[in-house]
């Protein structure tokens, strides 16, 4: 939302002068209200930040158990970060997740974009039926076909492969993403295409030079959400991947503290920090596109 930036540059100015009765009592009430506002802001800030501070602190703790993991470490150490790389398969998980996230992003953006383009710009037999199926398919919870998917991947020899997982993610989201992008493309005037066509551009050229650049905001949103999915998803990697070298971060981190022993806690903390920091930065930087995309989805989905 471009206006978000505008607001930051020029906060709304409220005209105080029009409030005629400016008594001392009124001013006092204003001060109290301001104090209350800031108090509430601070309480919420503490509420929001304390888990984050604690996990960062815990990751630098000397001991390894949950009990001794304090927010302010007594003898700070980076040994747990070292452990992650020497004693666990963390580097593999990280690389796997990153690889899956990138390929998933590229594949699903291309497939959904092409599908959405065809549905928004061409007339063909079966278009209505196709759109209706997309609409219905995107309502099904993705886990519903879990068992069948397992068996299908088994028959295709794709169990315990990253390709199987990528296909599951990328294809599973095609219906939803197509619907989202199609909604956006429909708001781009068709006269633009027609003008380009009159100038002699082919369908492919119109797509690459006219439609594609105009749909960048929604594509950024789709790309980002597809990139994020593998970092958080647990169900499908657990279903499809079995060897520990091929796992993704979600599974690896979960298994680290799944037992009740909690002896790996600080190592988990270090891993959590290493995962959370880049993702958080990415999110904060791209929040403009996220907000835009979500609002577009809400109004057009």
């Amino acid at each position, binding site marked *: *939302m471009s206006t978000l930036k505008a*607001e*930051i540059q020029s*906060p*709304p100015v409220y005209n105080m002068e*029009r409030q005629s009765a400016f008594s001392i009592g009124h001013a006092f009430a204003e001060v109290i*209200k301001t104090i209350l*506002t*800031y108090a509430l*802001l601070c309480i*919420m800030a503490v509420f*929001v*930040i304390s888990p984050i501070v604690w996990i960062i602190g815990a990751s630098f703790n000397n001991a390894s158990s*949950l*009990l001794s993991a304090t927010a302010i470490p007594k003898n700070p150490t980076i040994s747990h970060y070292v452990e992650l790389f020497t004693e666990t398969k963390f580097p593999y998980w990280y690389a796997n997740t990153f690889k899956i996230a990138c390929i998933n992003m590229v594949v699903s953006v291309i*497939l959904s974009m*092409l*599908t959405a*383009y065809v549905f928004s710009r*061409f007339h*063909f037999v079966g*278009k209505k039926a196709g*759109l209706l199926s997309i*609409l219905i*398919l995107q309502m*099904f*919870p993705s*886990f*519903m*076909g879990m*068992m*069948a*998917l397992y*068996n*299908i991947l088994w*028959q295709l020899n794709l169990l315990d492969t990253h390709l199987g997982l990528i296909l*599951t993610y990328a*294809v*599973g989201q095609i219906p939803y993403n197509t619907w989202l992008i199609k*909604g956006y493309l*429909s708001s781009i005037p068709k006269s633009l295409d027609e003008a380009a066509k009159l100038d002699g551009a082919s*369908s492919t050229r119109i797509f690459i030079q006219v439609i594609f650049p105009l749909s960048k905001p929604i594509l950024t949103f789709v790309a980002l959400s597809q990139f*994020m999915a593998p*970092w*958080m998803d*647990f*169900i499908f990697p657990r279903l499809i991947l079995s060897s520990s070298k091929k796992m993704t971060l*979600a599974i690896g*981190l979960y298994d680290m*503290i799944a037992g009740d022993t909690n002896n790996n806690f600080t190592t988990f903390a270090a891993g*959590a920090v290493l*995962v*959370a920091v880049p*993702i958080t930065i990415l*999110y904060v930087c791209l929040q403009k596109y996220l*907000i835009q995309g979500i*609002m577009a989805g*809400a*109004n057009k*989905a």
Partner: protein
Amino acid sequence: MKKSTRAGIMSAVVWGSGQLANGQWAKAIIFFAGQIMLLFCFPSVCDGIYGLVTLGETKMVINGSKVTMGDNSIILMIFGILWLFVAVAFLLLYIFNIRDAVKNGRLRDAGKKPLRFKEWWSKITDRSFPYFVLLPTIILVFVFVVLPILFGFLIAFTNYSAPDHLPPKNLIDWVGFQNFADMFRLPMWNDTFGGVLLWTVIWAVVSTFTCFFGGLLMACLVNSRRVRFKRFWRSIYILPWAMPGMVSLLIFRNMFNGQFGPINTFLRQANIIEQNIPWLSDALMAKIVIFIVNFWLGFPYFMAMMTGVMTSIPSELLEAARIDGATAKDEFRKITLPLVLYSTAPLLIMSFAGNFNNFNVIYFLTNGNPINPSYKFAGSTDILITWIYKLTKDNRQFQMASVMSILVFVVIASISTFNFLRTRAFKEEDMMG
């Protein structure tokens, strides 16, 4: 006999022969090739559909160390669905073949000439561009989305479950609506379903509304005229949204650990409590913790969206209101708030649907625990989706998981349909355009 009737009958017997009579040899070859392919596929199609109907007949036999493989009902079912679709595709091709022969026969009856190969070919290639682009997507979506969904749906009508009906060791059979009847009649299933459903609805409603109004409150606070450094505050509150949810949830799971968790440790050291609070091992307490943690995770999303709406209100509108003598309070109540609520209402509905199926929060925070002895395969904080997951992964009650999935789908689909019906996309005449 009319030429159209004759061509139709010819094509009905030998595919493409009618087209040949119409003088369209290229089409004739294509349709005839279709028939040849059908002849090749026919045994597989029959086997596939037969397998789908019977779900296998020979059991695996274990004789000492010698294992004779039997039929695998699951594989038979998946391939059965696949071959059924192939059969439907052939049927459509067959009908198309006859209709095409009749259509061009009519042209000849009327004394016109059917399209020549070159004209027909250019017409086909021109029109088939969309299909050409869509083909890979259609195949992928069919294999990875449609097929699994159909399979998941059909499982509800079989007895696919542990311990006696697990392929490849055993066969599974069709049981009709037996599972639905069990779900609603057997007290064990019925009680669990009722209890889990009730908690799922409470969870979805409360979690959605706490986050929505929490987000609204924070958006108003941060954007209020009293607050300075808006950007600084906003950056803090946005953090839970930006952090990977799973990581946050696992962190909370440890913070609320009853024995070793830092919250209990802190409270004990501060002499506020003497005994550890069973945050996650007491059913009611666990539910409260779930709401608190979900609030932490969820309010920033709404805050971000609402801030977006608030800052996009045109300043002329507010100025006009001010000129008309509106106070800051009026401005907020009559302009800002209605606009925010209006544009975030769809998010509220979507978020409700999302929470209904919020696997992560429940599974990572409590795992559905504490255990509830009166439930079948479910804990006190399990919602439908985590129960389905446990039924599938841990207990292999696939048939019941499938019944439940269908029920969840009905709920989600009704919400989505309701949401869709009131959107612009539907109201616009060009909805499908």
